[in-house]
């Protein structure tokens, strides 16, 4: 083997001496995130079957008792259902609440320190993988990133610096989603379920509970939250309060180490929760009440 090479020639697309499957991970991320984006967009455009609280929201088998099919379930991609909460304010609004809701958790995930790594690699190829050369991807070119590399110092990537504000909104959403999960167990009477009891555990209740737990783990393992808890301090032992913040920071750091895992599991579970409720509302699948 005597192939003359110029040592600086490392920037061509895919230029690398790596002989492992470096392209597998970015492709999987591309597929996974792409699938969720396509599904969420389809679900939002469909504009119905995201809740099961009213008889008119669901498809009921002919001749069946409608009151046995209603459920206190609301899809997380449509929560809070603002048009339902404020009908007069949103009287002009005729589309799915998903269009009002998704931009907020979407912004939290788009500016998330984990997802930044994921999509910079998979969608922008800056870089596609470690020690792999790459020219700007079509998406990068579309956004105008073809000139000198500027990282996160210029518009629009400049806004990545405001991740903590999207965290504040995501934390607020957690309160709302926790209320939805509570309703999944204790909200059966006011929707007029057949037996008149207020408490039931359906498979859907557990699915929604799993959703709020996983989303909570993802939200509160956030790097910005880690900083705000105590990461910004230089002296942890300067007072009782800073010592307590240090203890909280240590515990949160454990969660933070698994931020990527929580990011994926929670994303998949959000999609699954919506799909479960959608299939039940459409009459394709039947929710089972455990007790």
């Amino acid at each position: 083997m005597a192939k003359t090479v110029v040592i600086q020639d490392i920037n061509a697309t895919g230029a690398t001496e790596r002989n492992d499957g470096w392209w597998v991970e970015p492709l999987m991320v591309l597929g996974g995130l792409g699938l969720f984006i396509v599904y969420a967009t389809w679900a939002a455009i469909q504009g119905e079957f995201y809740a099961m609280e009213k008889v008119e929201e669901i498809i009921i088998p002919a001749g069946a008792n409608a009151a046995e099919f209603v459920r206190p379930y609301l899809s997380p991609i449509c929560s809070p259902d603002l048009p339902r909460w404020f009908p007069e304010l949103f009287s002009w609004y005729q589309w799915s609440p998903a269009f009002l809701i998704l931009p907020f958790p979407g912004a939290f995930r788009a500016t998330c320190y984990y997802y930044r790594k994921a999509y910079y690699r998979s969608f922008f190829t800056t870089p596609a993988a470690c020690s792999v050369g790459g020219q700007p991807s079509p998406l990068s070119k579309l956004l105008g990133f073809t000139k000198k590399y500027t990282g996160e110092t210029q518009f629009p990537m400049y806004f990545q610096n405001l991740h903590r504000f999207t965290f504040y909104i995501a934390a607020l959403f957690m309160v709302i989603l926790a209320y939805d999960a509570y309703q999944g167990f204790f909200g059966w009477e006011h929707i007029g379920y057949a037996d008149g009891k207020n408490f039931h555990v359906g498979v859907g209740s557990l699915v929604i509970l799993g959703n709020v737990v996983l989303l909570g783990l993802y939200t509160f393992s956030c790097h910005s939250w880690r900083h705000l808890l105590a990461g910004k301090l230089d002296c942890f032992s300067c007072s009782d309060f800073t010592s307590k913040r240090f203890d909280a920071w240590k515990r949160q750091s454990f969660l933070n180490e698994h931020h990527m895992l929580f990011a994926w599991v929670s994303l998949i579970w959000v999609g699954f929760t919506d799909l479960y409720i959608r299939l039940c509302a459409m009459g394709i699948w039947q929710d089972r009440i455990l007790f």
Partner: protein
Amino acid sequence: MAKAEATFHVFRGEAADAESGVEASGEYQEYKVPVEEGMVVLDAMHYIQGEDAPDLAVRWNCKAAKCGSCSAEINGKPRLLCKQRMDALPLDEPIVVSPLKTFPLVKDLVTDVSWNYKMNAAIPPFQPKEEDTDKWEVFENDVVRTQEFRKCIECFLCQDVCHVLRNHDRKDAFAGPRFMVRLASLDMHPMDARNDRVKYTKEEAGIGLCNITKCCTEVCPEDIKITDNAIIPMKERVVDEFYDPVMKVLRGIGLAHKK
């Protein structure tokens, strides 16, 4: 039973010549090396030096993954030659060994990493809050976080793999992950008096150019969580000082301070 044999493709090349304008170039030469139990790639390079190519240039010192001298790329991945075990590499195909590609070639596997020392020298050193160090009282909790950063052996594998330096050649504006770690260790130190390190990190070290793709963390032979524990915390400190309007208001009315 016959010993296993590994085929190496080792980069042999010469430095660029500024006077004639000739770029650094070279070629991959093939060598056969018998594989011994417990062997690392640096052993193989020494075998090649001893048997086939006494003029093969390879920098090394401790052979214990602590001096950071034998940094190179093995099958395209930045690695310490002395830490990469042969039994962890597939022997059914050639093992490609090349120099760090982010820095200028000196010869064969040796590169000129002096740019890193210039970056290091430019960082304002530790400035103690109190001159009389006998009075210092530092608690373990306050330094446990920065202890991780002190494991750095300055092998510059993180600098090599960082695409900002490697592919975009922004050495003019970005200090690289190694020095984000150093800046973090200084800024987080409870006894450091300087309050301009965050500004330095943003404006001189160029932390905004990092897009946290975590390659530095992946290659660190000391397993320092460079991105999660140094770069992202420093990015958040930059946000506190330069981007967060709420923090600006709080500082304006005296409810928050820089350090």
